């Protein structure tokens, strides 16, 4: 379970998160939508401790992410994240990209790590690209590799930060399909996305962020069919154009 309680966070003068509360249960898929700059990505990077917070707290299975005593490296094994920019390690092959963390962080033997990596890469449709360097892959393939890389650590939670935003339109579908597959398999996920049809399809709940506040949260049918907050309505009608 991920528990986010009254989280506030500023960059200098700019308050980006103004008291966020959100609980995500095991197996749940929550998508976060909202205008750009509303704090969606910042919240994700706070959840896995890449960014500090100013007040409030975030608990992952009861462990407080930002407590001094928390071993973040250990906690991050539980929480995978995939970014908008796919960040392939260019000096490693696709297979090595995926085996690196299991070997160096979990101390797995090479053979075992490779077995897991091959399974994950096949899962995301890259089983035939094991020896390829990321530079030769399309954006969509690199992003799927980044997903496999995170999954190889057997995380219990996955965070996706606008993973299709930097892709050419014709490559978006293959990545969304991968995400859908994960959701169907029961992975607990928080996704920030601009793909409204996808959010409607895949989510258990959809949260709408506006200027650092979670203005509204509910099941997709309600958020998209009967939005309560005027800003949600405004936002949704702007995305339909």
């Amino acid at each position, binding site marked *: 379970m991920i528990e986010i309680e009254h989280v506030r966070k500023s960059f200098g003068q700019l308050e980006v998160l103004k008291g966020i509360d959100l609980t995500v249960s095991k197996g749940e898929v929550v998508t976060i939508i909202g205008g750009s700059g509303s704090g969606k990505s910042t919240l994700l990077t706070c959840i896995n401790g*890449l960014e500090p917070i100013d007040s409030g707290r975030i608990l992952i299975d009861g462990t407080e992410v930002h407590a001094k005593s928390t071993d973040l490296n250990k906690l991050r094994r539980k929480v*995978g994240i995939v*970014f908008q*920019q796919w960040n392939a390690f*260019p*000096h490693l092959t696709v297979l090595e990209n995926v085996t690196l*963390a299991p070997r*160096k962080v979990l101390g797995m033997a090479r053979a075992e790590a490779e077995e897991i990596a091959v399974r994950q890469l096949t899962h995301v449709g890259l089983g035939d690209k094991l020896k390829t360097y990321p530079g030769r892959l399309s954006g969509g393939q690199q992003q799927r590799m980044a997903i496999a890389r*995170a999954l190889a*650590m057997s995380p219990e939670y996955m965070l996706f930060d606008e993973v299709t935003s930097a892709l050419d339109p014709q490559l978006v579908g293959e990545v969304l399909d991968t995400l859908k597959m994960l959701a169907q398999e029961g992975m607990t996920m928080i996704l920030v996305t601009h793909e409204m049809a996808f959010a409607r399809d895949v989510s258990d709940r959809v949260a709408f962020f506006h200027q650092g506040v979670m203005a509204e949260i509910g099941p997709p049918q309600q958020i998209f069919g009967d939005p309560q907050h005027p800003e949600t309505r405004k936002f949704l009608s702007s995305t339909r154009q």
Partner: protein
Amino acid sequence: MFNYTFQWKQAMARLPQMLDGAIVTMQVAILSMVIGILLAIVLTMFRLSGIRILSAVAKAWVEIARNTPALFQIYMAHFGLGSFGLHLSPFLSILIGITFNNAGYLTENFRGALKAIPDTQTRAARSLGMGAAGAFRHVVLPQMLRISFLPMTNQMVWAILMTSLGVTVGMNTDLYGVTQDLNALTFRTFELFALAAVIFYVITKIVTLGARLIAARLFRY
């Protein structure tokens, strides 16, 4: 006006001795590069550590290495340390002097290379549960060494040529030192030094070519 008769035969007879010298030259150059690269990696970590005294050490090292003559650096290793009672052999003095110089230049090269590696690489590594050291070692360092490969090759060529400064601290087993001694013995000045120059040239060509082959083999991405 010009009554110097070339006697190549005499010079050529000394070729085996000079090649022995070339081996010593290569030993100094290779050792100074290997230690220099390791030191430069340590100095780079000093710079990134955020600990003021460590980054000051790195900064001072780079400044001195790049803004004083290599000859001065070698003198400091030999006579400088000598005046504190630490008397190093010519071999060690030249090795330390050139290593110091290499480490300084390479640290600066590494700094440039690091700028070309986006922060998101470290972020991605950390988000996979790697510590700061692991992210540096497995993700940043290999890319940094790749980007710096050409400057490293240039530095290797410099290191080979800098060994000729060894004569100033009494080094006489390297290519230049051997040549100088043979000259004092035979007075075939032009032939001997021309031969030494050719050997230097061939060595540096082999090194740059070899480096290109290694790069092609190592960096397939």
